[in-house]
């Protein structure tokens, strides 16, 4: 009896020894709960037109050129829209990893815009899991184009404001999805009978087809009273990354290139050929102090 007890004890003992031998690291790895931030849900800080859940890193400057041609449906006389152009040039700055500010100017109504984008929390996995990232963007727009045939509107009359919440999740290394509800207040809408307060529900998705290319989709559905010719902005595109650049090529029905313009002033039916070829070029620069790597 004694022998059996001893033998079984011996076996147990041997077992624990061999278990330890299989990996020396196991014992210390188990004591380290690792929480990992999920990064790179989208290639750029914009899905196409809309803010994405991605932020700039501290000290990064993103020089963005957005360009939209005319509608393809304009036909051969306008070279399928290539004769027309709408343009926005902007600079975004990463103040901290969770705070990005940016400004830009669009040709459409000669509008200036600025925004502050803050990350409330970031998707994580591991010991402490947060299923999605939450980001908020607050922006201001003011058009500077002269208004013909009426008294010149004041600064306040030209202004509009928006606040947007962006909730996004990287489901896999290939697929990311975000929802972006937005509230826009325009002091004097372009069409005076349009609603001054507009709520829109937005959605964006990214599907990676290779390491450096992805297909993107960006849509907003505004709710409220609009002139009949206004439609919902829909864009479908391809992200191509080459080193410090991200090229975003796409078809979109939106002319405007800031939140107020593309959500409240998009015309044309995407599915009836009223789509325009467009591209965004994002060039990343390092402006802040370099992170020190001490070896």
């Amino acid at each position: 009896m004694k022998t059996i007890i001893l033998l079984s004890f011996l076996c147990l003992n041997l077992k624990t020894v061999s278990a330890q031998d299989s990996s020396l690291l196991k014992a210390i790895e188990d004591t380290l709960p690792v929480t990992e931030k999920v990064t790179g849900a989208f290639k750029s800080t914009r899905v196409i037109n809309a803010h994405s859940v991605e932020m700039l890193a501290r000290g990064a400057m993103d020089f963005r050129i957005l360009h939209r041609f005319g509608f393809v449906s304009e036909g051969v006389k306008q070279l399928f829209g290539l004769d027309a152009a709408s343009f926005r040039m902007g600079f975004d700055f990463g103040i901290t990893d969770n705070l990005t500010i940016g400004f830009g100017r669009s040709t459409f109504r000669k509008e200036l815009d600025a925004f502050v984008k803050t990350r409330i929390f970031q998707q994580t996995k591991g010991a402490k899991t947060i299923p999605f990232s939450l980001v908020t963007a607050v922006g201001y727009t003011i058009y500077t184009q002269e208004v013909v045939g009426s008294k010149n509107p004041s600064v306040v009359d030209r202004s509009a404001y928006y606040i947007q919440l962006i909730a996004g999740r990287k489901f896999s290394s290939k697929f990311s999805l975000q929802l972006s509800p937005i509230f826009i207040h325009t002091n004097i809408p372009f069409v005076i009978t349009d609603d001054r307060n507009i709520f829109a529900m937005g959605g964006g998705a990214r599907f990676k087809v290779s390491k450096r290319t992805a297909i993107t989709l960006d849509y907003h559905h505004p709710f409220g009273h609009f002139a009949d010719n206004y439609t919902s902005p829909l864009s479908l595109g391809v992200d191509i990354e080459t080193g410090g650049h991200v090229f975003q090529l796409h078809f979109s029905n939106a002319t405007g290139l800031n939140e107020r313009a593309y959500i409240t002033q998009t015309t044309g039916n995407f599915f009836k050929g009223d789509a325009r070829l467009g591209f965004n070029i994002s060039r990343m620069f390092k402006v802040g102090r370099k992170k020190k790597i001490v070896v």
Partner: protein
Amino acid sequence: MKSLTGLCIILLLATSATFAQSKLYTKAGNISFKSKTAIQDIEALNTKVLSVWETNSGNIEFSLLIKGFQFEKALMQEHFNENYMESDKYPKALFKGVVENSKNISLTTDNIINTKVNGMLTMHGITREISIPAVIKIKNKEVSATTSFAVFLEDYNIKIPAVVAEKISKKINIQINIPAYKQLTTK
């Protein structure tokens, strides 16, 4: 019967003795790497390297999270993880090997020992045999270790596209620095 019991006790003692052998560990090892080309230098550092070294058998292991490498430029870090190391798919780099002549190293007398470590390095889903020189320093019973060696990207199936081929070296120099190994106490 008695002799069998005796044998068991001896065996039991023998296996228990393996518990008593010295295991050293660290959770704060440093691994850095450098890529040098005429156009661009790239450097990154990971300060959370795990390592355990069983001095009697010489068995040694290293483990690190690829995402733990810190770069000067955030964009480099993103590209490193997303495009080159695919850290979502292959989150860790591992090394399992043996320190040559390990059991003859006295951990109590001040000394600087040049030795070799042979083993298998796993990263980006590929395992390869490597042999690297190492320097082990013992001072005031504190054990530290350093090594440097080079790996070739193509050996680990890390592809560099032609556009950036001149900016990223095919040969990457790696430095390991373990400032202090601590005694691992097993229960």
